[in-house]
């Protein structure tokens, strides 16, 4: 073992938004912005991603700021949408309009807080239906389902979350399952010039995202 990485299942809850203590010290003060970032992906392990062929992506970024959501499309947001589209297509999925019954829907969320202190984001998925009206995807009245956890975190920091929705089986499931989540945390996330490389990192560690 090159070095010891002690990651337990409990770390997951901490890792997303609940890192034990986000207080920086001299050990990490000298990290470059790219080195401060972590890229976390998780998937529904019961899903065969090659059974999906088409996708659509929300045409704006939802900004969740201290629990309040709003739609936004800045050049940075557009850069992320473009990058996600690019890497989905490279994985073999076909981009279609949301009115063309896509198999997959993709939502992009920038989660922000201006409050320094202990913030509880465990409600992120609890309020997902408030951030994303299922009617947008043509499934009004449906609820969302996610097995993923969010915890608490302790600094003023942003995160970018990409959620992949199973629209193909929504009717059969009676809900919209979130079958893949990619999350980026760290410094300098909201940067159009690095959006492509950030999204690439998520896709490169998710080789199972293949349409064939």
């Amino acid at each position, binding site marked *: 073992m*090159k070095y010891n990485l002690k990651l337990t*299942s409990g770390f997951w809850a901490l890792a997303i938004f609940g890192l034990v203590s986000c207080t920086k010290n001299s*050990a*990490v003060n000298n990290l470059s912005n790219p080195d*401060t970032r972590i890229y976390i992906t998780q*998937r529904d392990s019961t899903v065969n991603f090659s059974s999906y062929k088409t996708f659509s992506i929300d045409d704006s970024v939802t900004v969740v700021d201290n629990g309040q959501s709003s739609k936004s499309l800045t050049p940075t947001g557009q850069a992320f949408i473009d990058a996600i589209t690019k890497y989905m297509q490279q994985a073999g999925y076909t981009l279609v309009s949301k009115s063309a019954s896509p198999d997959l829907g993709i939502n992009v969320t920038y989660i922000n807080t201006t409050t320094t202190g202990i913030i509880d984001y465990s409600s992120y998925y609890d309020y997902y239906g408030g951030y994303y009206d299922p009617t947008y995807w043509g499934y009004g009245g449906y609820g969302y389902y996610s097995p993923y956890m969010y915890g608490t975190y302790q600094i003023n920091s942003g995160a970018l979350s990409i959620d992949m929705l199973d629209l193909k089986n929504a009717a059969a499931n009676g809900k919209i399952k979130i079958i893949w989540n990619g999350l980026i*945390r*760290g410094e300098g996330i909201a940067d159009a010039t690095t959006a492509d490389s950030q999204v690439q990192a998520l896709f490169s560690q998710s080789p199972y995202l293949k349409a064939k």
Partner: protein
Amino acid sequence: MKKYIILTLLLFSLLPASSLWAQRGIVKLNAAYNLGLPLGNFKSNYVSNISPRGLMGDVSLGLNNKWAVGLGFGYQDFYQKYPRTVYNLASNQQISAVLSNSIQAVPVMAKVTFTPFLGTTKLIQPYLAAGAGISFVTYNQYLGEFSSNNTSGGKFTAMADAGIQLPFSRYNSNTAAEIGVSYNYTRFGMSDAMNMNMVGIHAGLIFQLH
């Protein structure tokens, strides 16, 4: 005749320093810069980088010309950054991160020093020392800028040290330079993989306090 008078005076001046008990009750401060070289599991599992950020020293009380006891202290800061790698959190969860290990140790220990030729006029004085006590260790592992694992507390520590003291005067060995090599062990965790083993290379000065 004059030559004999000078020689006699010189011998008298040397007598206190060469008597068996000349060092008894003398309090000295030893302060040194320390280079820390990780060893064993500590090196392979946590930090392989040499730490240039270290100090060590002691305050000692002479018992006689050969033995001194005292309180040893130190500080060592280890840090290593590993390139970005994808780690499995679970079979369906991955994280990509630059991993950093940061470890600081502040040992405080009882120490005994054996200096066989102290009190003689030798300009190179070898010594041996050993100590045991508690090291206050802080360990942080970071994924990116986020702390994923941290531990701190007082842990058992022991050390052995050997080197030479170089008195600035043939007739007063209480002020000297010192260079030496130490082996330090700190039982940091519950398993051998968590023990801190390192070799320290140190250089510093010794002053008489009392």
